């Protein structure tokens, strides 16, 4: 944020993008307790306080805005030697000071490492010929159960992902002794059969504190053709899943797959097993650049209204809460992927069905 917001804009923000409960909870920390039923009154009481940049940044995080939901991608490196990765990163960061890309180590603890990649992206500007946009990506490196490390990062545009991939290549080149494989979950490296199984097994997995309530969207893809199942078809697929049947045996799925389609995207509603919380998780396999992206697209709580009807009340999750949940699903999906890949019939890969 570069400009100090006018009160009238803050009013609009509070009115349109933040719930009454969230406003009250934000101002509580500032020492202002608002006891009011009507949102108008809550806003009028909160609005006069002069807030700092720190406060406004916090407000932006609470806003029910698409951009506040983080896209997460995970890469895996097969090295066991974090020290070597760390020293390669250090050496890279000292070299890059003058260019448009900067690398900075943030902290290092046992078996984990955080670093930050800042780069400048140019895009056609409204006032200047080119606008310089500074992009910052935080990467968390954590030990995984497969004898390597996970690189988790949030990104919002395709270049973020490409930059991180390039960086991983540079890490490898920086130290000739450092040899590792970079893997990520890519549909193209699986046979058609396994691509379906990846989704099926993910739907049927135990997801710790979360359980699948509903498959809200399912998209199939063939070459550049995409199609989405309609509600009725989804209902049939869901029934097949819940009755323990193999997805591939469902007539509709069978027909679709026979036509050479495979699953590429799904939005899944998860309910918390103990609390009234819910999230919608979007699992998306993109093709340019090819990558697996996970994102929470909606979150909140179930509540009962005055007529005892269950309603959904939206509640934004903090970036940390989102990452914690996304990490859980990333790990699950990766485990399924690794198992499928090990047992995959490689001759089937990239063969049109």
């Amino acid at each position, binding site marked *: *944020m*570069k*400009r*100090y917001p*006018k*009160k*009238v804009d803050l*009013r609009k923000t509070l009115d349109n993008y933040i719930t009454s409960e969230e406003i*009250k*909870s934000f101002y*509580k*920390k*500032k*020492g*202002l*307790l*608002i*006891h*009011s*039923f*009507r949102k108008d*009154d*809550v806003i*009028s*009481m909160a*609005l*006069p*306080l*002069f*807030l*700092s*940049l*720190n*406060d*406004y940044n916090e407000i932006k995080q609470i806003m029910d805005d698409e951009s506040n939901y983080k896209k997460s991608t995970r890469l895996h490196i097969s090295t066991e030697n974090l020290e070597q990765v760390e020293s390669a990163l250090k050496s890279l960061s000292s070299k890059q000071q003058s260019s448009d890309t900067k690398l900075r180590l943030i902290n290092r603890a046992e078996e984990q490492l955080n670093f930050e990649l800042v780069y400048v992206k140019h895009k056609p500007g409204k006032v200047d010929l080119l606008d310089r946009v500074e992009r910052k990506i935080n990467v968390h490196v954590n030990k995984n159960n497969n004898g390597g490390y996970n690189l988790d990062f949030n990104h919002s545009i395709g270049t973020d992902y490409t930059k991180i991939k390039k960086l991983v290549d540079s890490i490898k080149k920086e130290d000739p002794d450092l040899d590792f494989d970079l893997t990520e979950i890519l549909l193209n490296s699986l046979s058609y059969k396994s691509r379906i199984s990846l989704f099926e097994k993910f739907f049927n997995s135990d997801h710790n504190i979360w359980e699948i309530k509903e498959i809200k969207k399912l998209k199939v893809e063939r070459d550049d053709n995409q199609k989405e199942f309609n509600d009725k078809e989804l209902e049939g697929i869901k029934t097949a899943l819940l009755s323990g049947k193999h997805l591939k045996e469902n007539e509709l799925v069978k027909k679709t797959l026979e036509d050479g389609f495979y699953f590429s995207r799904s939005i899944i509603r998860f309910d918390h097993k103990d609390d009234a919380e819910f999230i919608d998780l979007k699992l998306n396999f993109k093709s340019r650049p090819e990558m697996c992206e996970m994102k929470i697209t909606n979150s909140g709580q179930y509540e009962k209204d005055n007529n005892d009807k269950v309603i959904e009340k939206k509640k934004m999750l903090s970036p940390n809460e989102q990452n914690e949940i996304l990490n859980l699903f990333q790990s699950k999906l990766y485990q399924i992927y690794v198992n499928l890949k090990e047992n995959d019939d490689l001759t089937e890969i990239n063969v049109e069905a």
Partner: protein
Amino acid sequence: MPEEQNFQGELWTGQCITILNKIGWKQRGTSNFDIPCSKKSMHGKNGGKRKNDHGIDILFNYNDPYYNENKGIIIEAKRRKWSGINTSEIQKWVKQLLKNLECSETADKIQKYGFDSSNTGLLMIWCHESNKYDKIKMQKYLTGIELKNKRSPYKIYVASNDKILKWCSLIQFIEKEKQKDSVHEFKFLYPSDYFMDEESSSLVKNNTLNLIHMFSKYIFAKSTETVEKFNISQKINITHIFIDEEPNLEELNFMYELIKMYQLEDAEKIMIHFYGEKHDYRGYIEDFIRRINSEYNSLDGVDREIFSHYITLLSDIPTNYSEV
């Protein structure tokens, strides 16, 4: 022990009165008075009817320039050791104060002053084990407070050591300034914004500090001072901005945007006051001050300079505050 506790409690009430007097608020009536309960069936314990009156610690009022209103404020003063301050205790005090506010609307002892509004309370919590006081924990306690969904709205401000000491430090700074022969006027400043009463659309200078700024990240003030320039003494205007935030460079630039937006630059001198020494941020602050001054220097016909100042942060309530 209870007697000693009562004495200390009274002492704290007295200190609260001194603090609020010093920022231009006016006490109404005596401290510790009762008002009848007008919502007996709602204010009783365990579903029963309430038998007792409500005890009010202190009643104050001030004119709020933002609302153009004479506001009555009910204050509840609590002095405890650190272990006596937690979410459930604060919840009790908030509940008590909320009931006081609800019944104040029909209480003659309050209504006789003819306030334009009396739906605001201030809970002043003092932890006398100041070395144990934890600002972050206090914030967590507040996060846990349950709020009532009232049809007619009430607000309760909660201050504890961190805020209270900053107010005392500010008061001490202003008092010292006012004692200087060269300083002629020192008043709080209320810039306009169009969310407020349309009639009060210009800058207002006032001896009173309102609750809005006491709980905001910024307090504004204006003073005039006589200075010697080229052997000629002249009166200059000074804008003061007191900032209660970690002043990194982004935060300082953001504050400068605020200064411009509210047209606070109309002065020969702009003083940015920080609470405490802010050693970790000195580099940012110096960079910022240098940059703004070089901007001012490059403007033709502008005789203005910006300065940073570090207010001595008090570690306790000044001893003379107990004399009411």
